[in-house]
């Protein structure tokens, strides 16, 4: 079920009413959440529900077993088992064909043919998200950071909670399980704020991302026929699209959770207002980057040790983040390019600079900040070509297409009026985000202190824009991961 579908618009009020008015005890509310989450997931494909249930049972049992063991070695064995099982499932569905392809290529280099066939595997939606969630649970128990829950219903609710099941934010048991195990109380302010966040998420997805997609899909599919300026415009729009698509999803997920009395992890902190690449990665897909930081980067040494160690670890984490996105070399290259951009900052010790928000308590950024934002954004426009292109070869051809004489011509667009309208909407979007950049989400700030009528007029305008630009339901980009 897509957040931007009519099905979801019907599903959510039904679950909301049942949750607050019918299933009033903690246990029954959690059972309802599990049922609703399974229905939500099965709407896409019921066959893969079994995988979620298996993942849930594996880590629920292993979590309890780790806690029972006295010996460190036994605990470690159980943790290894959990990681192997989780990564085994993920690896099979996501990376099997990728590894076979590369093994075959490697063997061919030595003049030998490997006789293994590719499998026709469908990637279950959200597998990368909930697998990481279940793994972090077992690791945290092993590290004595949390105690395992004996409540299977609460644990299952944590794993399958529908707002964040298919595309995050990737929650941690330490922050989410206590919320599942404690009785939720309806909070008016929290719920209305949730609705505002949903509204803004829908705006980002339907108005900005889906309309960018119209141009982006055409330009990336037919890149060989377009001028350099058109290709650059396509890459620029994709940079906007991917942010609005994914952060829009996160906004809706967080907003919906708030309606049910839950607080989810913030996943995006206005990343396009970052002054360098390091700040960008602290603000982009926060739940994933902190996951890799805690469970991969720090265990391999993190920023401890020499500059060389730091650089090695940075490249390692980016290569893994790249691969997490998909079984394709283009994602590895995408990770590598990002790591490469980190190098000068690590060498100069400036990778931890800019931890506060840009132009704090000011209306506008200064010249240095503007330059920082501009160059970070420009870097992302080029780096994301590798993310969006069909293959590594296409990405390189796309890039070389940009750097041609035609870069200085006017872009050739299928519909210039629509492109101009889209640019105006993008400017409006950035203005709203700029004013809300100190808050959890943009609409928490914008018009929140205005008179009721102005506020209402603003919200109705957003609703109007959502309906006005609503087209064919487009799947969220991150569903494929």
């Amino acid at each position: 079920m897509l957040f931007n579908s009519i099905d979801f618009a019907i599903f959510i009020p039904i679950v909301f009413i049942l949750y607050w008015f019918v299933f009033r005890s903690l246990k029954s509310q959690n059972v309802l959440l599990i049922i609703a989450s399974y229905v939500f997931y099965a709407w896409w494909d019921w066959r893969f529900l079994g995988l979620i249930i298996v993942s849930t049972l594996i880590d629920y049992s292993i979590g309890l077993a780790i806690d029972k063991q006295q010996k460190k070695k036994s605990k470690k064995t159980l943790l290894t088992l959990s990681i192997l099982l989780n990564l085994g499932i993920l690896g099979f569905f996501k990376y099997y064909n990728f590894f076979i392809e590369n093994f075959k290529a490697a063997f061919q280099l030595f003049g030998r043919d490997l006789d293994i066939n590719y499998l026709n595997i469908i990637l279950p939606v959200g597998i990368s998200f909930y697998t990481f969630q279940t793994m972090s649970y077992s690791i945290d128990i092993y590290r004595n950071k949390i105690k395992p829950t004996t409540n299977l219903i609460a644990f299952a609710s944590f794993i399958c909670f529908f707002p964040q099941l298919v595309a995050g934010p990737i929650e941690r048991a330490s922050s989410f399980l206590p919320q599942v195990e404690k009785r939720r109380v309806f909070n008016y302010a929290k719920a209305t704020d949730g609705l505002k966040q949903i509204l803004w998420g829908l705006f980002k997805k339907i108005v900005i991302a889906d309309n960018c997609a119209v141009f982006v899909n055409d330009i990336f599919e037919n890149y060989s026929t377009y001028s350099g300026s058109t290709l650059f415009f396509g890459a620029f729009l994709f940079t906007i699209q991917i942010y609005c698509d994914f952060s829009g999803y996160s906004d809706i997920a967080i907003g919906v959770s708030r309606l049910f009395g839950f607080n989810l992890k913030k996943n995006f902190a206005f990343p396009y207002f970052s002054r360098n690449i390091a700040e960008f990665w602290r603000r982009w897909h926060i739940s994933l980057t902190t996951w890799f930081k805690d469970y991969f980067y720090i265990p391999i040494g993190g920023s401890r040790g020499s500059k060389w160690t730091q650089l090695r670890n940075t490249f390692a984490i980016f290569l893994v983040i790249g691969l997490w996105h998909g079984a394709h070399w283009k994602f590895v290259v995408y990770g590598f390019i990002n790591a490469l951009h980190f190098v000068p900052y690590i060498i100069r010790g400036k990778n931890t600079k800019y931890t506060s928000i840009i132009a704090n308590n000011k209306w506008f950024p200064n010249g240095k900040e503007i330059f920082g934002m501009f160059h970070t954004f420009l870097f992302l426009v080029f780096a994301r070509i590798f993310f969006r292109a069909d293959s590594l070869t296409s990405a390189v051809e796309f890039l070389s297409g940009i750097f041609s004489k035609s870069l200085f011509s006017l872009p050739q667009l299928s519909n210039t009026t629509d492109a101009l309208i889209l640019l105006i909407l993008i400017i409006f979007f950035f203005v709203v985000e700029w004013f809300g950049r100190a808050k959890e989400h943009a609409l928490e700030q914008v018009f929140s202190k205005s008179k009721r009528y102005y506020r209402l007029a603003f919200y109705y305008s957003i609703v109007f824009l959502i309906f006005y630009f609503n087209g064919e339901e487009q799947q969220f980009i991150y569903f494929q991961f």
Partner: protein
Amino acid sequence: MKRFLKQTVLFLIPVLVIMITMELALRHIPNDYELKNAQIALKKESIKTLILGSSHSLYGFNPEYFTEEAYNLGHVSQTIDLDYLLLKKYIKELPKLKTVVIRLSYTTLHEQLNESTESWRQKDYNLYYNLNVSNKLKLNSEVLSVKLRNNIKRLKNYYLEHEASISVTNSGWAFFEKPHVVKPIDDFGWTVAKKHTAKDNNLVEENIKFLEKIVNLSNEHSVNVILVTLPAHKSYRDNLNTSQLEMVVAAGEKMKRKYSNCNYLNLMQSDSFKDIDFYDPDHLNTNGAKKLSLLVDDFITQSK
């Protein structure tokens, strides 16, 4: 909680009222689907030839040039699965029906409306033909299936500017007002051909089954089927994927060999059609439609 529900409902009421009003107003606008459904009911006792298919059929076959009473039931983006559903709906109601003419275009085996970017058009078959092609609420509503900007334009055109909302003649045929598109056809045959070239063959098997169902259903009612690959402009033909085209032609030939009530007419490369007969790379204009209709009518007469 009460306050929250009250405020939310109050906020949503104007939105819902506007949506319901728009839905009613939009359904009130006459459209080709509703009109064809009504017309076919009026002519059901006399129709002898039924034309089905996408825009290629809709613009390409003018029933006025058929010797016997014909009706064009084609629509823009209508795919073979919908052709079958329409035939299934009407075949029992057309006692004099003798021939069904269906286009077998370059895209016919590789597309279905529900899989395409035009899937919103399914609502027209749900709402105006009662075909129940989708249970999705979105596809059973004008407001929910079409972009608001397009719906506002439709409302403005019909209610304020009193523009005609019907684009077909009494025989179900539609024609382009201008003989050609403004742009030279040679310039965009490649673009159209590329757009029509499928990424995979996933739907081929299923669509061939729909073709077979159409022929079998027709056979049960002693109706002949003529599959027609329509003429196309050179700029389009030259840029088609050979294997996709061969698949289509092979399917037509195979159907002809396998079923006694089925014939296949491949006019893709026909010399009879010149530049002046095309509106754009893959659609005939009024001239071209006249030529094609006379040719197909002649074929029907000779086949008897």
